[in-house]
């Protein structure tokens, strides 16, 4: 009897997924795939990408569900260790993704927050989740306070300078990518005003290209960084 529980886990998950997110019914495997894609993109993109909090929450729910099921299995069960390893892998995937984002937020706090505010003003979709935003704000505050402490020996020092010159991600860095669709006429942005070179992506083709030329395609999910 024990054996059948594990196999059912995944089926149950599928059903649950359907109930939770009615608009986009996803199977467990699809959620994992989406997460892996988001993770790879986040890992290789120099800039922060729009958050995938639905996928993360979904997968986190799944992980705790699977852990719950595993707890009911006998310790000696061979299947348990296999599934436990699988759960561990998923946990690594999610935490690595979230850590990756935190790292970017910390490194580029000032510029990311400024961009977020612009997006907020123009009513665009925000890239950070609420808790990430909160974290970014308190991180920024702590850095500012620390710097102000250091420069407090001369009150009224022109301390604004470092604020105007924040650390920025190098969006011109090169990335490897794989195209998921046929995309025509991608402009290669080489930073000059001269004539623009165009390139067509074929489905499944792999390229090296500077990130800023394809940033939009990465965000919309039409290409996958590898």
């Amino acid at each position, binding site marked *: 009897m024990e054996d059948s529980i594990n196999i059912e886990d995944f089926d149950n998950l599928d059903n649950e997924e359907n109930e939770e997110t009615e608009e986009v019914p996803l199977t467990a495997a699809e959620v994992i795939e989406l997460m892996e894609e988001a993770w790879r993109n986040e890992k290789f993109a120099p800039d922060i990408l729009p958050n995938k909090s639905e996928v*993360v*929450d979904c997968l*986190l*729910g799944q992980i*705790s569900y699977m852990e719950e099921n595993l707890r009911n299995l006998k*310790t000696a069960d061979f299947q348990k*260790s296999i599934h*436990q*390893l699988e759960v*561990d*892998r998923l*946990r*690594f995937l*999610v*935490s*690595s993704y*979230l*850590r990756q984002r*935190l790292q970017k937020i*910390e490194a580029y706090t000032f510029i990311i927050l400024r961009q977020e505010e612009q997006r907020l003003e123009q009513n665009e979709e925000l890239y950070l989740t*609420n*808790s*990430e935003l*909160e*974290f970014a704000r*308190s*991180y920024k505050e*702590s*850095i500012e306070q*620390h*710097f102000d*402490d*250091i*420069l407090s*020996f*001369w009150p009224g*020092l022109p301390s604004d*300078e*470092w604020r105007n010159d924040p650390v920025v991600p190098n969006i011109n860095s090169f990335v490897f990518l794989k195209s998921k669709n046929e995309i025509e006429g991608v402009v290669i942005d080489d930073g000059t005003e001269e004539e623009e070179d165009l390139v067509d992506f074929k489905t499944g083709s792999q390229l090296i290209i500077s990130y800023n030329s394809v940033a939009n395609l990465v965000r919309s999910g039409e290409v996958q960084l590898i």
Partner: protein
Amino acid sequence: MFCDKAHTLIKELDRNRDILSPYNNDLVTEIGKEITTLIEQNQIDAQTNESRNSAGVSLIPTIRVRHAAIHRNLRCILAYHYNRLNSLRTMRWEFGSILPVEIKANLSTAESNWFAKYSSMLAKYMRSLGEDGGVNLGIDMRPPKALYIEVRCMVDYGRFELSDGSVLLLKKNSRHYLPRCECEELIRQGVFQHIVN
């Protein structure tokens, strides 16, 4: 020479890339003094009539040089502190929220405060993740290869309870075969050593 001390400070930072050297309070204070002196001198000269000295030579170049020196000093100071914060940040991920004593001794008061603040920020963020009580991002740092790993205990740690309720007695030099996720934290704290065949 202007900015010599700032240069020394940056060199010191550069030499200790992987470790956090003791906070160089003396040098930072001295650079602060240098900046203050330069600003004061500039202010005096700027107020002098039409910025010319008694010989009728313009003081503006002098002021400009001092101004550049002030900015360079500021930049160096900020770079020094910023890089220290960055390595502190890395250590938060390595050691958890409690720093080893020998590292703590190398921090300035402001840095200790910042570290505490950073820890609580991070804890707050981790708690907000997911639906039930948050996710500890401090574990699962490396992709898991095997479920169980072999570890050697380096200190007399005492009793250690596993998440399934069984209790182990960890003695120095004892070897254990444990679930990886249970001992990851202890490995980073130096209690366990991972035995790789």
